């Protein structure tokens, strides 16, 4: 059974003249990491809001078709039950921080309090998640006075602490330095290893190439391409659709055009490294 399934889903915001999502069909499987990419304004965040149950309950508008989460249609879910099943990390960390808590510790605990988790359990979970995200030194700070990168880590911690089966993550690293970004991706990878199903919107295409099992490309509300990550990125024509392609995939394509293709089309640094070293040693052997 599919974990999340969309059948003929279209959606139009209130007062809008065109559909923000157009006839989308897709089945997500449990335990996989899905990269959602495409131009800004194309519908990626709307897609996330839909899975999270914010559409149409929060935004209003017209939703047609069906969305099944763990086999149950989204309109039949209680919002509290959905909140403990799907965690949502917002695009803008400045929005996610509640603004009503005076310490980072309380901020991270807020979601758990709302779910009615026992006090001891809350303390355990918050303590463990701040260690995991390397923000132990911030727990007594005021969340409203953190830097962009720190807020992004706190926002991430708040959601991980909820221990939901599904995570919808909208650009988790936009404010982070490269080291902080790779730390976050290690955690995302770890969450996947723990069996979480993850939908990830991210512009850092190298990281999508490395971590996503499958990629969905959304443009002007339509799902224009989807498939295994390696298949999607070996089609460099997607550049014309406003989709960024990893530099390594473009290099593989360059090598092909120069008549010296790699044996398999590399889309990540480690794949390319392997191919190049293999080519090098073949040359020496002959």
């Amino acid at each position: 059974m599919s974990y999340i399934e969309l059948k003929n889903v279209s959606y139009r915001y209130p007062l809008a003249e065109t559909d923000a999502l157009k006839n989308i069909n897709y089945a997500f499987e449990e335990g996989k990491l899905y990269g959602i990419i495409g131009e800004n304004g194309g519908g990626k965040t709307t897609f996330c809001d839909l899975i999270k149950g914010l559409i149409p309950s929060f935004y209003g508008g017209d939703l047609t078709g069906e969305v099944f989460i763990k086999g149950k249609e989204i309109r039949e879910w209680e919002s509290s039950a959905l909140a403990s099943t799907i965690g949502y990390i917002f695009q803008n960390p400045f929005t996610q921080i509640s603004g009503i808590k005076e310490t980072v510790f309380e901020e991270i605990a807020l979601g758990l309090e709302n779910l009615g988790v026992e006090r001891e359990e809350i303390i355990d979970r918050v303590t463990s998640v701040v260690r995991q995200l390397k923000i132990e030194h911030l727990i007594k700070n005021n969340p409203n006075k953190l830097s962009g990168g720190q807020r992004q880590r706190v926002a991430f911690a708040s959601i991980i602490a909820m221990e939901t089966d599904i995570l919808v993550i909208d650009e988790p690293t936009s404010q982070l330095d490269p080291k902080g970004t790779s730390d976050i991706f290690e955690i995302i990878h770890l969450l996947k290893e723990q069996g979480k199903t993850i939908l990830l919107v991210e512009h850092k295409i190298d990281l999508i190439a490395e971590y996503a099992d499958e990629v969905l490309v959304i443009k002007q509300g339509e799902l224009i391409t989807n498939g295994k990550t390696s298949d999607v990125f070996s089609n460099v024509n997607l550049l014309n659709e406003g989709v960024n392609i990893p530099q390594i995939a473009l290099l593989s394509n360059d090598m092909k055009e120069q008549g010296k293709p790699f044996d398999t089309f590399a889309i990540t640094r480690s794949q390319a490294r392997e191919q190049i070293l293999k080519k090098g040693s073949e040359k020496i052997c002959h």
Partner: protein
Amino acid sequence: MSLEVKDVSFAYPNGYVANENLHFTIEKGERVAIVGQNGAGKTTAVKLLNGLHKPTKGDVLVDGINTKDKTVAQISQYVGYVFQNPDDQIFNNTVKAELEYSFKHSKLTDEEINRRVERAAELTGIQQYMDMKPFDIPYSIRKFVTIAVFVALDTPYLILDEPTAGQDINGINRLAELMDILQGEGRSVITITHDMEFVADNFSRVIAMANKRIIADDSARNIFWNNDIVAESNISKPQIGELAEDIGSDNKILFRHELLEYLTRL
């Protein structure tokens, strides 16, 4: 004509020291990227350039004028600072009003103001959003609204604080084009960013910061190929550079065409 930062340190009123001994000059028409770890003091440093912060030690001179002798409003006629979070900057009801607001006390004619606002909208690609409420448009576009404000004001120095955050490939390309145009007009652009490919593609001079200080001020190539600096400032080489290092190239490769040439010669 230049921005001079002379042995500047800055401490917040609560005593927290955010910048120590910054020393650099940015010439008119120059383009500089500031990179480095979160919390290194990048944003504090650029706020010193437009007078939002005044040095606790040392001086910042804008075309020879000490920022300590002027108000932020006076300095911002010369140095435009686009906030990291557009929502900290925007407060008008429409995009157009946001762009026009800065001319409230201007002596320019209405015609000239209109011309500048329209041109700024065109260069930043926001024409279609002019009559909309700023908070009804996507975050990535909102960032271009805040950039357009200073493009219209025509400040000789422009500081962009993480303009690449959340931008798609179209937005990145638009930023690059915009910087080319501004540089062509002799304006300086100082950009804080975490996007290393954007840095390699668009900046010849890079300032790397770590722990409140500048640890390197050099070409992009020299900075990315100095592993001590890369590690200390929490940055990374662009992917092509990392791959070149993986396979043992020592030619300081940063770009795909360079690596391709190296590989096809093997």
